[in-house]
């Protein structure tokens, strides 16, 4: 089977600043890959580049074997590549149900299908606040909503940008459980994190970025065996 996602030679720029240097990694169907690196390493920029949401970038992005690097953002999302940005970016004036409605796409063969009801089962907290505006939810609830919103598009792969950032330990556990459920449904996931704590609960493989370059790529077991790499490139 080919890769679900194959990124190669990815370069990205903000104005004159060169941020990503030939970033490359692959994701197999149903696989969870952790994209690790300290703050400012280029994780978010990698995701934004895949989604065509940075001003200027070059390289190839193969999704299910097709080059999507020339497509506009919405067309990439329509192919089943879901994106959960950092800082949540929920629509603050829209209710929980309305936020989910925005994410809705037709069911996709070969990808797990979601409805508001199955998502409320995945994130029970949300079920209790269907009519609440997104702006009046706690950080953890917002994080759940933003994931649920992306799942409404029935993606076959999601890019999750630091889903555990700023969450209370209890919520982090819920989040890990939810992501494992997503994985069990057959979803491929790329998860960005600054450290291993959360990523090791769910990931199969890890890719480490530093200053916009890939410094390590291998299984989680291989990474666990290399404390030097962990100390050099990851936050504690």
């Amino acid at each position: 089977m080919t890769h679900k996602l194959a990124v190669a030679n990815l370069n990205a720029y903000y104005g004159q600043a060169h941020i990503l240097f030939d970033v490359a990694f692959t994701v197999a169907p149903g696989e969870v890959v952790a994209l690790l690196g300290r703050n400012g390493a280029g994780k978010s920029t990698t995701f934004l580049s895949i989604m065509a949401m940075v001003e200027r970038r070059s390289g190839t992005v193969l999704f299910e074997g097709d080059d999507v690097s020339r497509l506009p953002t919405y067309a990439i999302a329509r192919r089943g590549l879901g994106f959960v940005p950092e800082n949540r970016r929920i629509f603050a004036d829209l209710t929980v149900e309305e936020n989910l409605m925005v994410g809705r796409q037709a069911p996709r063969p070969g990808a797990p299908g979601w409805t508001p009801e199955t998502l409320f089962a995945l994130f029970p907290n949300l079920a209790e606040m269907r009519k609440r505006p997104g702006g009046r939810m706690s950080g953890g609830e917002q994080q759940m909503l933003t994931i649920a919103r992306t799942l409404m598009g029935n993606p076959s792969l999601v890019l999750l940008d630091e889903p555990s950032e700023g969450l209370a330990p209890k919520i982090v556990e819920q989040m890990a459980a939810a992501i494992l459920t997503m994985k069990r449904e057959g979803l491929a996931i790329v998860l960005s994190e600054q450290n291993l704590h959360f990523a090791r609960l769910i990931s199969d493989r890890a890719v480490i970025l530093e200053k916009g370059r890939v410094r390590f790529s291998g299984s989680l077991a291989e990474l666990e065996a290399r404390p030097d790499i962990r100390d050099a490139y990851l936050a504690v």
Partner: protein
Amino acid sequence: MQLVFVQFMTGLASAASLFLVASGLSIIFGVTRIVNFAHGAFYMLGAYVAYTLTDRFTGAFGFWFALLAAAAIVAIVGCLLEMTLLRRIYQAPELFQLLATFGVTLMVQDLVLLIWGPEDLVGPRAPGLAGAVEIFGKRIPSYDLFLIALGPLVLAGLWLLFHRTRWGVLVRAATLDRSMVAALGINQKWLFTGVFGLGVFLAALGGALQIPRDAVNHGMDLRIIVEAFVVVVIGGLGSTTGAFVAAILVSQLNAFGILVLPKISLVLVFLVMAVVLVVRPWGLFGTRPPPAQASIGMAVRPWRPLAPGEIAVAAAVVAAVALMPLWLGHYALTVASEILIFVLFAASLHLLMSVGGLASFGHAAYFGLGAYGAAFVVKAAGLPMLAAIAAGPLLAALGAAVVGWFAVSLSGVYFAMLTLAFSQIVWSIAFQWVDVTGGDNGILGLWPDAFAASPAAFFWLTLAVVTPALVWLHMVIFSPFGYALRAVRDSELRAEAIGIDRRRVQWIAFVIAGTAAGLGGALFAFLKGSIFPDVMAIPTSVDGLVMVLLGGVETVLGPIVGAVVFKALAMWLISQTDYSKLVLGAVVVALVVAFPKGIVGTLADWRDRLTARRGAGPSDAEASADATAAEPPAGTMAPAPSPATVAGRTRP
């Protein structure tokens, strides 16, 4: 008491159309971030098309069908405009968007003239609603009652659309975070087109609904757009509820203003708008708008004052201009004087919009105030011309001080709308206050003193006034004050961190610009020998903006070149065709889309490219190296730069 009631009902009925237009404007802005100046044009088109269709389709069913069909047809035109023009300028600075849509307004004015002719057209009464209903002993037209009921119905309908349909929810989501909506798989292109179509539909319906009340005429577009701007400034841009409440407020102020201050009724609206701005700068129901995506004037070649060699060139140019009376005839000299005056006008606006980053859409007000100020001094005090030319700008300075005080608390589109609304109020005072200003008849007999009576002498006088004024403006740009002004333009936060008081700096710039414009206005009064309210109407303000744009917004000498070229072209055009607005509007649109750097900016680009190619000197080599670095690498995925990003690209 009965009179009050009648006025109240009239005000409510007028509010309906105003609400439709303003809510359309608000909805479009919410999603696309474009303030659609052409909204008034669509309102007018709605009325004209409805006039034609009600002629064709009669009977009760035919009439209502005609109104809806008119709105739908105009909405389709709006969608086509969005797809062909607006899609190209979504990333452009706000000023360009406003100007492009104003260009469309100009074109529509002439198209309407071509299609429907110059006469006011009186449409049919609404079948079944032609009579009146007696309430409290007063007869209220039933059509007014229908309109009064319609407003809340439309508000409710919009609420349902935005809360009970997926499309409406998508629109609200896009208003909050456009790129997130795209990341969720929604093609914004069609969302934008749909929203624009909806907004235009509302405006056109507002126009169509007016035909049983008022004659369809050519002034409708600008009148309604100014009122709609006032409404959204008061109600809050992006809020339909705000548009509803503010439309009622403004309509009531208009209705009662006639009773309370018959001479200057619009002053009431002015006062209310001023109070709202002080208490709630983003309007009653508005929220602080997101920062502009690209501001004008920023990220340009570093400006520098004229080098000694260039000063010599400038002096030679002035000397050459001074010799023009030797070979130009009377008419040509009058034209040349007018061009000189507008050079000063454009340069004064440039200080505000390019140096200060504040695009005023009402700069003509200060030009006009200067002219009226000079006229008052001559007529009331009987002072000689030179005293009048010196005193006239004081009135402009006063007006700019008052308006500027409110205006600088805002920026971007709010600033543009506010300055436009204030200028329109100044205009209407000149128009309404007949005892003082002569109203529409203007003030006549402002002849220059004997020594400047000949066209040549007046030309020299103009040159002798305009040249030092330009030099002074140039010195202001390169004074510490000018640097502070640019600092707040480029980064308000950083400028305030080093102790620059943004509001104070911008307010002073507003007053300086207004005073300089007023000086031009005072000269203009004597050049023409008369002064009419129209000199401070919207077209003059927009002419100024186009001059600066044509010359090059991001250049120092742009306004001078732009004013000369624009004024000469415009005068030539008017002599050549009856449809100069059509051509002018098309030119404005083309400028914004294809030529946003203007003449001076483009010439400077050529010069840079030429010197870079020759590769002479280290600084040039650096420039060329940078130019290549700025090119995306081969096989890049970057979208083709839009004109606006080209305009905004930095060069060392």
